[in-house]
């Protein structure tokens, strides 16, 4: 019947509910740990665990036993989902920040949101430090000091278009670095 993971994959495709339960019992702690490592928040990590196992059950063919162990597949999937959550949170924070600048005093984040924001920021802080100096400078001014692109341009003494292009490049690099750091830290 092939190796143990190939057998489990075949059982999942056949709709074997016991197979999913077995996989959960064996690998959920590792999946949960991987998500928790990235997110630092149990509730969010549990959501990732649910996403990962529902995805495995709903689309069993996405896992290819020839490509690697089921444990590796699930933990990598969990990290990717967790990173997606962090990115999503960062985007939300950026939107909120912009909104606050346009309408000061209109937003009052809850204590939970403030904790989540702090955790999310800590995940990317180290990555920001690895950016080239000129990109790091505009990122810090725009995101950590809350300046608009025009204000960043004035503060850095560069054209506004250059600010936007450096921010764009920085975001791409940050996403790549964030992925690599999270994978290497497993």
């Amino acid at each position, binding site marked *: *019947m092939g190796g143990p993971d190939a*057998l489990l994959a*075949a*059982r*999942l*495709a*056949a*709709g*074997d*509910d*016991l*197979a*999913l*339960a*077995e996989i*959960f*019992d*064996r690998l*959920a*702690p590792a999946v*949960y740990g991987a998500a928790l490592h990235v997110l630092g928040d*149990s509730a969010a990590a*549990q959501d990732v*665990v*649910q996403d990962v*196992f*529902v995805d495995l*059950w*709903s*689309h*069993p*063919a996405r896992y290819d036993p020839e490509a690697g162990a089921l444990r590796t597949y699930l933990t990598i999937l969990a990290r990717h989902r967790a990173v997606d959550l962090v990115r999503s949170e960062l985007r939300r924070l950026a939107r909120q920040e912009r909104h606050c600048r346009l309408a000061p005093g209109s937003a009052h984040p809850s204590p939970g949101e403030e904790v989540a924001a702090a955790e999310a920021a800590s995940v990317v802080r180290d990555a920001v430090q690895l950016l080239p100096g000129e990109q790091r400078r505009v990122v810090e001014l725009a995101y950590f000091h809350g300046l608009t692109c025009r204000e960043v341009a004035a503060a850095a003494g560069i054209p506004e278009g250059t600010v936007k292009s450096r921010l764009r490049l920085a975001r791409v690099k940050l996403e790549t670095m964030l992925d690599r750091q999270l994978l290497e830290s497993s």
Partner: protein
Amino acid sequence: MTTHEPVSAPGALPAGLRGRVLAASWQARAPGRPWPEPAEISAVEAFRRAADTLDRLLGTLGDGDWAAPALRDLDVQGLVGHLIGVEEHLQRCLSGDPEVAGTDHVGATQPAAARQAGLPAGETRADWRRAVNRTLGLVRGRAGAAFPAELALHGMRLPLDALLVVRAFELWTHENDIRLAAGLPLAVPDSSSLRLMTALAAPALPVGAARTGLAAPVSVHLVLTGPGGGTWDVLLGSVGRDPAPVRIVTDTVGFCRLVANRAGPGDLDMDITGDPAKVGGVLAAAAALALD
């Protein structure tokens, strides 16, 4: 064949996470159903496909193939004659003739098989095809509701759709008998037809268990892998609770060949959990479902 011990208990995780994740999974995709799910076809369509496939095979056979020993004392031509006899009995059944209810599947069709001796092979093939077309005409010409809820044929009492799936199963089985006789590779039905066959055979295991005289209750978690498969929990033997269910994982086509009595348990690539004696009882029950 490999066996496994039951898996260990879950590790340290937040309380309630296991139940929540499994419930969400079952909601996303119901347990038991294969992925990908084959296109749904009717029982009539499965029967028609099986007949067409066999017809194409018969069209490729040479004179020597028709005379090759195929099954029991029948050559290929005699086996096709047996199928003509089955169609004739099915048509009598559909017409409400009670005499075919309890007749023996093999013995009662032996005259039809013998009739083919000495006839040109092309004539036998044409006779059989006409018989199949008559069956299809009868079934399609009347709404399913026009037939009794259960039809009785050759010791079986089944709804029309189930009876047609049995017929598709039989045509595929004899197609492979003929392929073996002619030295050709075995054929596999399409996944939609296989799904109908497994969905009929797996829940029918208790019928096979009754035929083998299985006494003690045996609960089996049957997992059929590959196209047309699925998962079933079936209780065989006497009514009651089996404290130690067994699990059988095997491939769909192999299981169907076992049900057709064209493969033995030893021929199957299986992964089992539980008492091997109980597993043997389940496999024997599967083989006892065969018509011939």
